[in-house]
């Protein structure tokens, strides 16, 4: 162990001789030469660790080659090369510079054998190697990797890297990684105490794990300090958990908002319960699928734009179907809301079965464009891009509808008809047209909701059914004829749901929310924002 440490120290010292590339090279070559003479996997592993500890990015290449089984020893002079098989012989590359070094027959070379333990060592070494790399992001992730797997042997390499580091973020991470390493090392108490302070300040789940692991083995003042750190991290994490729940709730709320807002319009303006609303969402999702299929087969380059192309298509498809339903069925049933409910349920069955016949009963794959996949972390919040975009999108749709309803002539007519249909008709508003267009608008909004929802759920003929009851709840809770009510209803239901989930479980949480809504309706039979006046009694 001590011999390794001396070597390591020597290597680090060499590394610190900044600018002397030749010395670096020599050190690496010396290390590599040991690979040629190493006996057995354990020894190779040791050498790999030594090489890794140099922190020199140049080591990365031979180590990667080693893991892939492409590192060879020339039998004649025991020098090490990277070899690529090329038609029976090997094309040799210099392990350090990577320049071509002739070819050799297979018989002249011995492959350095590796096992999984060696490969693992290479992987770990690669982490510390990139500490000294050119790319700041790579250095940062290397520091993070070291933080998660603290290694007392890496402290020196980290110290060196910290001294050189210019990027503030990377430097901070390296210091955290160093603190983590100090905790598992045999350094002095004062140093460990400083490390605990640093780690406790992080307040992350990983920090909690580190400290819990440390507390188990520590004793005395350090143990107390670690315990204090753990409890402070615990409370920080709880706050973050709350924030995460709010975020999940907002995310669910935005989905509910998208699904319900079209329903709110048709219900508010026409007093019509459209049970086929969920199927409009489904049609939107299937339109996205068709658009993506066409793009995949004819213009794959446009794939990132597929959603932007699908949006107007979905709106038009769903709006056209909506207007057809209104003109074909619903207009004969005005004044009979319960019958409308049944007829639109029948329409929804037909649409579902139609889609099932055309596209098959199985789930269809709708891809995420690159800008919607992946995610990022904000403090301890994990935020995925698709959820974030859906929140933004739902708010944009809401703002658009608000604009249409409050700032356009059509919106004015819509509101007039909502408030007093006969009076509006007397003033010259063509109420049948307003009805048809409103129904088309509501359905079209459901269609574009389908585009968004296709990004986070399965696209199947039953897609709409899953949303219909929730959207009803939102509309009933929020109150009819008021877009703000729908917004508030969607987000409060979403957040309530997500806050209940950790305590009651997903299903029970949902049941509780449903029961609460049923009870709420008893208190306010017309929702949060009820229309007042004569119109209500109809």
């Amino acid at each position: 162990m001590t011999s390794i440490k001396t070597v390591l120290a020597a290597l680090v010292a060499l590394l610190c001789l900044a600018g002397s590339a030749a010395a670096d090279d020599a050190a690496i070559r010396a290390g590599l030469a040991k690979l040629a003479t190493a006996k057995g996997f354990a020894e190779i592993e040791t050498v790999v660790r030594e090489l890794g500890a140099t922190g020199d990015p140049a080591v990365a290449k031979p180590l990667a080659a080693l893991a892939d089984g492409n590192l060879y020893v020339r039998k004649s002079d025991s020098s090490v090369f990277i070899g690529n098989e090329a038609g029976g012989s090997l094309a040799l590359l210099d392990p350090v510079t990577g320049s071509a070094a002739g070819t050799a027959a297979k018989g002249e070379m011995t492959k350095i054998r590796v096992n999984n333990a060696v490969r693992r060592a290479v992987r770990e070494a690669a982490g510390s190697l990139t500490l000294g790399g050119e790319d700041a992001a790579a250095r940062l992730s290397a520091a993070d990797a070291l933080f998660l797997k603290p290694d007392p042997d890496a402290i020196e390499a980290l110290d060196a890297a910290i001294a050189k580091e210019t990027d503030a973020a990377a430097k901070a991470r390296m210091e955290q990684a160093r603190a983590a390493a100090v905790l598992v090392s045999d350094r002095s108490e004062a140093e460990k105490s400083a490390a605990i302070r640093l780690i406790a300040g992080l307040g992350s789940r990983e920090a909690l794990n580190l400290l819990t692991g440390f507390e188990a083995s520590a004793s005395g003042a350090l143990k107390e300090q670690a315990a204090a750190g753990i409890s402070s991290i615990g409370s920080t994490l709880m706050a973050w958990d709350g924030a995460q729940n709010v975020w999940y709730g907002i995310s669910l709320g935005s989905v509910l908002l998208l699904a319900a807002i079209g329903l709110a319009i048709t219900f508010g303006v026409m007093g019509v319960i459209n049970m086929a609303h969920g199927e409009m969402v489904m049609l939107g999702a299937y339109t996205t699928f068709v658009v993506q299929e066409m793009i995949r087969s004819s213009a794959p380059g446009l794939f990132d734009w597929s959603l932007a192309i699908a949006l107007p298509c979905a709106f038009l498809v769903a709006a056209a179907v909506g207007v057809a339903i209104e003109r074909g069925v619903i207009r004969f049933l005005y004044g009979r809301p319960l019958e409308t409910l049944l007829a639109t349920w029948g329409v929804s069955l037909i649409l579902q079965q139609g889609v099932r016949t055309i596209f098959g009963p199985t789930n269809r794959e709708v891809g995420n464009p690159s800008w919607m996949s992946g995610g990022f972390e904000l403090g301890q919040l994990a935020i995925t891009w698709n959820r974030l975009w859906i929140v933004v999108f739902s708010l944009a749709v809401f703002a658009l509808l608000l604009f249409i309803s409050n700032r356009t002539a059509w919106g004015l007519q819509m509101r007039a008809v909502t408030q007093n249909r006969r009076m509006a008709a007397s003033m010259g508003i063509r109420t049948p047209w307003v009805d048809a267009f409103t129904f088309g608008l509501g359905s079209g909004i459901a269609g574009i909701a389908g585009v968004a929802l296709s990004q986070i759920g399965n696209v199947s003929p039953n897609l709409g059914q899953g949303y219909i009851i929730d959207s009803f709840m939102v509309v009933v809770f929020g109150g009819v004829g008021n877009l703000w009510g729908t917004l508030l209803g969607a987000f409060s239901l979403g957040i309530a749901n997500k806050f209940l989930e950790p305590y009651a479980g997903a299903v029970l949480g949902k049941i509780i929310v449903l029961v609460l809504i049923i009870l709420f309706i008893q208190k306010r039979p017309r929702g949060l924002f009820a229309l007042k006046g004569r119109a209500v009694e109809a």
Partner: protein
Amino acid sequence: MITARILANGLDRRIAIFLAALVAIAIVVPALNLLLPPDNPLHVPTHVVALFGKYLCYALLALSLDLAWGFCGILSLGHGAFFALGGYAMGMYLMRQIGSRGVYGNPELPDFMVFLNWKELPWYWYGFDQFWFAAIMVLLVPGLLAFCFGWLAFRSRVTGVYLSIITQAMTYALLLAFFRNDMGFGGNNGLTDFKDILGFNVQSAGTRGALFAASALFLALGIAVTATVTRSKLGKLMVAVRDAESRTRFIGWRPERIKLFGFTLSAVMAGVAGALYVPQVGIINPSEFAPANSIEVVIWTAVGGRGTIVGPVIGAVLVNWAKSWFTVALPDMWLFALGALFVAVTLFLPRGIVGMWDQWRSGRKDRRAARGGSAEATVETPVVRAKSVSAPALDAAAPQPAE
């Protein structure tokens, strides 16, 4: 006075004929099944008995919805919940009758509880080994739920589509709840693998015949109860609440109490239907709570004719018979047919089959009277108008969107 009596006799005659037919079916069908050899052309196969027994349960369910929707104007989209609760009460009795014959051979616990590693029977399963207790629960549980739900909803004057939606939410919440394993009702799989009912094997032809007869008789009882209630003063109040709730309130009645009575009675009937259904199909699981099922019940009632008593019975049997036929012959077309039925019935047949038949007959009498018929016909003319009271006032005003 005379006309009123003629009217009463006329309507009662139809119901009386219907009741007699049901009693006859209750005797004849099991007899044809059990007594005749299988090669006899009049022999009714056991599976047909089971199938039609199921239809009769559905008919009772549709009738119960008719009482709520057709007479009280409460469009419940959650009647399947009462049906399923009655079914679960019966299923729990049947589970307890399995005793130690289950897969795990535990004399005390049903199989699924052993599987979930439960140690003792939950308190709400106590008593279900007794038939009388289960029978009371079949009536009590749906009735109590409907009473509490209705008491809350009607008191705060939740009406129309709002009421429909929260009944839907109720059955959806129950669906989710019964899917949970922790509830102790078998979770996803529900209750099944029944062996005995009252000591008779549920699989045997004799028991199936008896269950069929019981379904027919309970349906007859349901029709008799519904007819009695709706022909009473209370029934007239129900119709008044349905057609003009505010007016009834201003006259001095309490519409919420009238509705509560109708809703609760209806839920109890639905529970009985569920209890008869479960031993015949051999399983009860949470999917019975699915909102789609409850909406289907509405269409049975609508097809037959809401506000008529025999209509929903006819509607339920017809639609379900069509469903059985479609799912065998044209499985892909069934949802199209059902969807088209929903649209067509609401657009073209708002009174349902029986309602249309009544309308057509009265129209014919009108025409005969208009042709200057006998004195008898002129006497009957007011009958026609009186009759329209029993049919729901569907088109009181010209079609106008809600205001």
